[in-house]
């Protein structure tokens, strides 16, 4: 084989770094992809532990948590909030859900809602009894008791609802989640489509990661948008062909194994006594809270 001359020459030493830097979007893309993947891994790991919630049938687990979620959604008083809070803490403890796992999933929503709700504290948004007054120029702005209640209620409710969903995710392996959904009155083709979408997301993310990594490994970037776009354009054709082929192949693989448009599933084993107990308990909480509403 005749190698061109330039290919035979190796660069003697590192050239001094000058104006060469990794484009921000690649770094950020890779970080986002990596964090999503890590997130899924952590969830899967936690779901594999032993604990109370993990012992329930996935269908019952989903349904029960839904009862608690709806109970949280309808409650409007302190007793309701406090009792559900206790239930959440108890369930997390009994299901060996780590505090850090839980906080990691709840914190973003907490902070987000917390910031969003701040203006509602002020008298200009929520008039009422001032509990703290600040003078800005000649204007008097205060934090009101009513504002505090409004903001507090929303913040507590959102946090608790997010915690409940996090509890479900942290105690249920992804496969069980889909199995559970299939056992609930959700059309089978929707569950299959949902699962396939879930798979595709990871395949696509991995492809995107590879492309971004490949780009990183060859980066000599002067921050020109035109270069970046050219690079994107060149990758598009490749990606389009590959993903199309993959999707067509999957469709063929399904047909090959007898799929004709309607997924036929297997009945699941019946639920056990503990599952019924759990459902009874959670629905009891739900009805009690409904009564207090």
């Amino acid at each position, binding site marked *: 084989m005749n190698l061109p001359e330039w290919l035979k020459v190796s660069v003697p030493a590192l050239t001094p770094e000058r104006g060469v830097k990794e484009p921000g979007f690649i770094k950020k893309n890779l970080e986002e992809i990596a964090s999503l993947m890590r997130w899924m891994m952590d969830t899967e790991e936690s779901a594999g532990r032993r604990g109370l919630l993990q012992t329930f049938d996935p269908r019952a687990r989903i349904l029960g948590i839904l009862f608690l979620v709806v109970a949280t959604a309808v409650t409007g008083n302190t007793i309701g909030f406090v009792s559900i809070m206790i239930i959440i803490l108890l369930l997390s403890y009994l299901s060996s859900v780590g505090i850090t796992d839980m906080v990691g999933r709840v914190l973003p929503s907490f902070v987000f809602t917390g910031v969003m709700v701040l203006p509602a504290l002020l008298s200009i948004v929520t008039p009422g009894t001032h509990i703290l007054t600040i003078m800005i120029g000649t204007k008097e702005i205060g934090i009101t008791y009513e504002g505090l209640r409004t903001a507090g209620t929303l913040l507590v409710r959102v946090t608790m609802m997010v915690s409940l969903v996090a509890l479900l995710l942290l105690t249920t392996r992804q*496969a069980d989640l889909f199995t559970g959904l299939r056992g609930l009155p959700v059309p089978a083709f929707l569950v299959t489509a949902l699962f396939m979408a879930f798979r595709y997301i990871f395949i696509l993310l991995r492809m995107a990661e590879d492309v971004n990594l490949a780009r990183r490994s060859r980066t000599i970037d002067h921050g020109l948008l035109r270069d970046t776009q050219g690079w994107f354009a060149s990758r598009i054709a490749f990606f389009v062909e590959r993903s199309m082929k993959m999707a067509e192949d999957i469709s063929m693989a399904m047909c090959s194994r007898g799929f004709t448009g309607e997924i036929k599933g297997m009945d699941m084993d019946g639920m056990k006594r503990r599952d019924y107990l759990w459902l009874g308990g959670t629905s009891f909480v739900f009805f009690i809270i409904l009564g207090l509403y």
Partner: protein
Amino acid sequence: MTREIYRLEGVSYSYGRYPALRDVDLVVEEGESIAILGANGSGKSTLLKLLDGLIFPTEGTLLAFGRPVTEENLSGGFLAEFRKRIGFVFHEPDVQLFCPTVFDELSFGPLQLDLPVEEVKKRVSDLMGMLGLHSLRDRPPYTLSSGEKKKVALASVLTVNPDVLLMDEPTNGLDPRTQVWLFELIEALRGFNKTFIIATHDLSLVEDLTDRVVLLDEAHRVVADGDTVDILRDKDLLLRTNIIHEHPHRHGDVVHIHSHGPYAGHDEHE
């Protein structure tokens, strides 16, 4: 007399403007083990997809079990029979595995074909035992190693108990141990009158497991169809169709041209 499984007469297929298979004549009988041999892009996968009724000839006729396979024809009762009798192991296990767990994966085929649930459970359990997959029962297939994926993909086809097995490059990307396992499995199944049609360019597979070779060239035509042993001995033919290649080879100080393929040892070496 053995039963005829496939009869292809003048079958061509093109993807839009691009031809992938030209004027193929082929007869496959029950119990045969056939290698579809050809370089990359010669049309092996296309041929298998035609044989599995996933795509249909743009020209020529394809008969399966004596009945024409066309888009209109392949429906209802014939479709169910067809799918029950023919299994296709795809090249990429990732493509073939789309269920949430290994168990779901193995039971998918028989359930779609309306086998009774108890029978499905028994088959799945038997196969998991045979292939040592019990510990993976509830694992999502996409988290498995590539060898395990291949096993699951194969098992998911075997649960239907097809008479005809179409396999697309089954040894690709397998480590030697899994490869040996696969050879043993195919060998065992051959004993029960199963028909194998295997697309590959793995010559050791061809040599060990098949008795007939259908050779495709890069113009997407069948250039040879005959006994495995005869075709593998025809070095010129294999060179011409890009199945084997020659490259310079260094032994100590001696550099010589050396072809890679079966029966091509170092005998011309002084």
